[in-house]
């Protein structure tokens, strides 16, 4: 252990906070740019005759594109640190360059994807590209900043064996995996099909029939990120924050022992019980959607 217990806990708390912000902003960036699995509906909509004004990027799978921007940020930061830059300046510049490169990919991806849909008459809206791209870059910059800062703290302060770019890459991939698993469900399962009754489930026959009208005027990606920032983003942040905090907390407190591993398993058991409580709660709130056969017969 490099630091004493109090400082270690303080650093761990800082890492948890940074991870929470990174997770939240990662998901919001994927919502405003419409990336990952829910984007299949945005891509499908014009083919079903539903033309829309939603940004459509999906550069690659979410973990890979976030890993790419984070590792670029980490690499530039390492180069600047070797040139005796002040760490905060180096991280900011590194994160900004990573975000700009993601922004370039976003514009080419949007233009390319819409161009491939010419036969379905989906227009390429230049105003959407003009004001959504800087929003994507802005969200990605904050995520990069947090992830590179985590990597910097882990490497320089806590003495992790991996270098800053590699740690940034791993956290970029992990945050993408979490964002894709958590926050995107809020975008894909709720926001894209918001005209359905809450709690009725989502029939596969609705595929591609996304909501195109906003609270006022036609819906665009900025409207989507406004909605997802209320729940999907923060939930993703909580997931990454818990991951970063609880993957290090047992070893910080109990050292590198089997006791620490046991505490880790205990945390997982608690999360399993909490999941079960949610399951019970939600089963009472919604459904069942079908009646049992003998019940039906009894009623008849």
């Amino acid at each position, binding site marked *: 252990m490099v630091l004493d217990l109090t400082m270690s806990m303080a650093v761990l708390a800082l890492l948890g906070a940074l991870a929470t912000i990174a997770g939240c902003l990662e998901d919001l960036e994927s919502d405003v740019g419409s990336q990952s699995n829910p984007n299949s509906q945005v891509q499908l909509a014009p083919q079903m005759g539903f033309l829309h004004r939603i940004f459509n990027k999906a550069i690659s799978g979410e973990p890979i594109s976030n890993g790419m921007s984070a590792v670029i940020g980490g690499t530039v930061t390492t180069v600047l640190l070797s040139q005796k830059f002040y760490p905060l300046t180096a991280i900011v510049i590194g994160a900004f360059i990573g975000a700009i490169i993601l922004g370039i990919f976003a514009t080419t991806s949007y233009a390319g994807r819409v161009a491939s849909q010419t036969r379905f008459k989906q227009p390429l809206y230049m105003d959407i590209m003009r004001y959504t791209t800087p929003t994507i870059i802005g969200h990605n910059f904050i995520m990069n900043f947090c992830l590179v800062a985590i990597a910097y703290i882990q490497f320089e302060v806590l003495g992790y*064996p991996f270098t800053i770019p590699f740690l940034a890459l791993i956290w970029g991939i992990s945050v993408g995996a979490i964002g894709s698993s958590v926050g995107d*469900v809020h975008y894909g399962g709720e926001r894209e099909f918001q005209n359905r009754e809450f709690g009725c489930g989502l029939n596969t026959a609705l595929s591609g029939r996304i909501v195109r009208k906003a609270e006022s005027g036609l819906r665009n990606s900025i409207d989507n990120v406004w909605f997802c920032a209320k729940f999907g983003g923060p939930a993703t942040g909580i997931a990454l924050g818990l991951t970063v905090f609880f993957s290090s907390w047992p070893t910080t407190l109990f050292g590198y022992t089997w006791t620490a591993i046991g505490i880790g398993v205990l945390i997982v058991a608690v999360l399993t019980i909490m999941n079960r409580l949610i*399951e019970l709660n939600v089963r009472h709130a*919604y459904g069942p959607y079908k009646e049992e056969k003998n019940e039906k017969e009894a009623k008849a």
Partner: protein
Amino acid sequence: MVAIDPTLLTNIFLIGLSGTLVCLAVHFIPVGGAPAAMAQATGIGTGTVELAAGSGLVGLITASYMYAYEPLADIPLVMAAGAMGSMVMLASTMFAGSLIYAYGVAVPFASAQVKKDPITGDRQDLYISKGTQGQGIPTICFVSGVVGAALGGAGGGLIYFVLMDLYKPLLSMTSAFAVAGVFTMGVMYVNSVIPSYGVGGTIEGVHDPKFRRVVGKDVITSFFVSILCGLLAVLIAGGMSV
């Protein structure tokens, strides 16, 4: 002559074994792919490779930290550290995902593959909404996912341990950490992709009939591919010593 040394052969075998563990792990993780992201299928709403690699890499961070700071850490402890990191990542992700399914999308959790949850005994078929293949993360999927993450993290920890022992005498510590880390990541990705073909992109976990149908073939394939990766790792080390 490098490959006939018994220690090196053991190393190759251990890398083969750890890759197989990662491959086996993917079958346990409830991955619903794009349909799950729209709450139209049971499981986590992302791809197998993304999730398995994402959780395995968090395990790699915890395993590497354990290896670096506990001089007496043996293989089981490093593997357990990897398993713990992966389990925490996947459990946190599934828990937060459940929050979204429950209160953001508002669907009860239901598996389409079993009539009753083998752990809780709850009826599943009545809670599947019309036109879907189940939704959310029921308890059996959650537990199966945690077990899968533990296997994947342990596999990652094992690869890392073996590679560090291989590269440490040949490189500076920083370089050895980097090469072993990147190679571990590569082996994880290879073994996350192999099961994707078998499961066809989605699987609910250990209770899914698909599990029994494909796991044997995938594990054998993965073992041989991982042995190839191990051979490559040893050949690279041979180049370093020149």
